[in-house]
């Protein structure tokens, strides 16, 4: 019984860590720019495939593969900014929210399809993986899961340090709180947007490598974690980073319990029911507070 429970907990914490990474990437962009990046899933996939190419095809060490995924994600974020976001920001602000969502849906489809055309649809094996497990008495902890949790914790520390301690982080938080005021205080808001998209792209790249190391590389790789990250964002309230992490962990644990008890098929539907129940009780999310917006 304890090893079953342990296995469920390990699986839950691992996927929770992955979801948290995906959710934070989304939430960061939403919180600072009011933009929902539907191309985030494709950026995840991109990171996984870039790491694969660097390590397998070019034969470079794993660390460089990681770096490649980070750089590719950040670049994708930058391209997204220059090609789409910068242009849409010039239009009417009230239409930005919906327009940017539709545009990034288009970019996401195009990117996923470009990956499909380049690498083919057959699943590939992500070389970033460690075999074996850590044995602590009766407990068996696979190294792979420990690696994922460690990487995610490190990334969270890096992100919170970048947001809390650096000049860039202060500019991002100022823009998130009040874009106009930040701009009047001399914050280059456009540069902040570029930085946020690059940061979130880099997070997506790492997340893609980690997700694919648990399963396999395939073009729709990012869609499943993204869909779950979406509803986690809804539960936590978009733009709330600590809330996003807590919701990701809680829902992932719930998911792995349900999957064990009722079968894998009911994992996602049960999450959805919980989310809807939460929203009926608290429409602005568990940790969000009712927003008073000037219409």
């Amino acid at each position, binding site marked *: 019984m304890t090893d079953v429970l342990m296995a469920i907990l390990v699986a839950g914490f691992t996927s929770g860590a992955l979801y948290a990474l995906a959710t934070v990437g989304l939430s960061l962009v*939403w919180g600072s720019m009011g933009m*929902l990046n539907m191309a985030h899933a494709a950026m995840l996939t991109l990171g996984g495939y870039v790491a694969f190419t660097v390590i397998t095809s070019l034969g470079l060490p794993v660390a460089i593969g990681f770096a490649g995924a980070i750089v590719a994600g950040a670049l994708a974020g930058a391209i997204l900014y220059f*090609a*789409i976001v910068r*242009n*849409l920001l010039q*239009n*009417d602000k009230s*239409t930005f*929210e*919906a*327009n*940017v*969502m*539709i*545009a*990034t*849906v*288009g*970019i*996401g*489809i*195009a*990117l996923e*399809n*470009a990956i499909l*055309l380049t690498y083919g649809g057959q699943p590939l094996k992500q070389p970033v993986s460690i075999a074996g497990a850590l044995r602590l008495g009766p407990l068996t902890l696979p190294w792979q899961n420990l690696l994922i949790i460690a990487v995610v914790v490190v990334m969270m520390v890096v992100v919170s340090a970048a947001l809390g301690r650096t000049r860039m982080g202060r500019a991002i938080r100022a823009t998130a709180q009040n874009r106009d005021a930040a701009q009047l205080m001399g914050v280059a808001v456009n540069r902040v947007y570029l930085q946020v998209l690059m940061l979130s792209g880099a997070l997506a790249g790492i997340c893609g490598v980690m997700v694919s190391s648990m399963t396999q590389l395939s073009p729709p790789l990012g*869609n499943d974690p993204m*869909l779950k990250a*979406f*509803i986690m*964002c*809804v539960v936590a309230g*978009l733009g709330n980073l600590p809330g996003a992490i807590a919701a990701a962990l809680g829902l992932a644990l719930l998911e792995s319990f349900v999957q064990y008890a009722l079968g894998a*098929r009911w994992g*996602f*539907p049960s999450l*959805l029911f919980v*989310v*809807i129940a939460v*929203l*009926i009780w608290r*429409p602005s999310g568990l940790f969000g507070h009712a927003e008073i*917006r*000037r*219409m």
Partner: protein
Amino acid sequence: MTETRPMSRSSMSRSARTDLAISLMLIAAAIALPFLVDSRYILGQIVLALFYATIASQWNLLFGFSGIFSLAQMAIFAFGGYATAMLCFYFGWNVWAALVPGALGAVLFSLVVGLACLRLTGVYVALLTLAIAQTMYLLIVTDTECFVMVGSVCRQFTGGAVGFARFGDLGTRALLRAQWLVGNYAIIAVLFALTMVFTYAIVKSPIGLAFRALKDNPGYAVARGVNRFQAQLLVFGISAFFTGLAGGFYAAHFQAIGPGVLSMSQLMFIIAIVVVGGVGTFWGPLVGTVVLVLADELMRESGEFRTLGLGLIIALSVVLMPKGLVGRFGDVIDWLGRRRASPDSKPAASSIVQSPTPAGK
């Protein structure tokens, strides 16, 4: 919006006359079409395009006119189709008898979805409806439990990954023999025309104004006594009726329905149609359907680049023409009109100055 107010009477009737002229031309074209088109393939694609246009017009009613960013449109369409197919398959109903119950089932489903989602606003609605649509897809595809045995084959309750087939058709095959496709074309064209007429009536009616007010300025609309939740639930249900009805006809026309209609690419195609045509314009979905189905046919030559091209078309048209083709066309007309009327531009200027006063009416 407000600056057109003072000249509203004359411009309203002019726009109504334009709409009437366009519809009459379209009806004439629709009647002439089967005599002009010989190829079965082309006629089949036109029928498919009419389905897309119907679904897109209803998504436009939701998103373009009422500001509800629902991504459950294909789920509601599929629900109507599945309900019709299952009534015929399990109870042996005639397809024609099952169409309206199927559509009503879709309305019921949409009200449940609406009750869960419409307390939220903006992107939260989009995320939650997307999650619901994906859940429906996953539950259907992974359904493996035997519900009935058909011959020696096990059938799942939802049809599983295969879906339903051979549950009846619209009766045109028995009636028109070789010309059955023309018969189906006529039926679907009438469905599309009725949908457009009802949509027009809704958009121009007082309740349609309430929907638009909620989209343009929710705070002001609510302050004027519009109940946001009720009004949005109502438009959700109305659009679900036509969407579900289209789903039933779709299942009947193809004599099959499967989980494929729930796929992301189908949803994206509908969104692309509305975005390219013009969000919140009455003729936008039709224009978008024509353009995108043509583009799709052209890209069929290049086969594998189809989805890639579609994605780029969506992104580019949002960036380059936020109001779609219809909006761009309107800009061109305005520009021409202003050029012609440049000597006496006084009325236009005074109308803008006057605008704040009657806006509260």
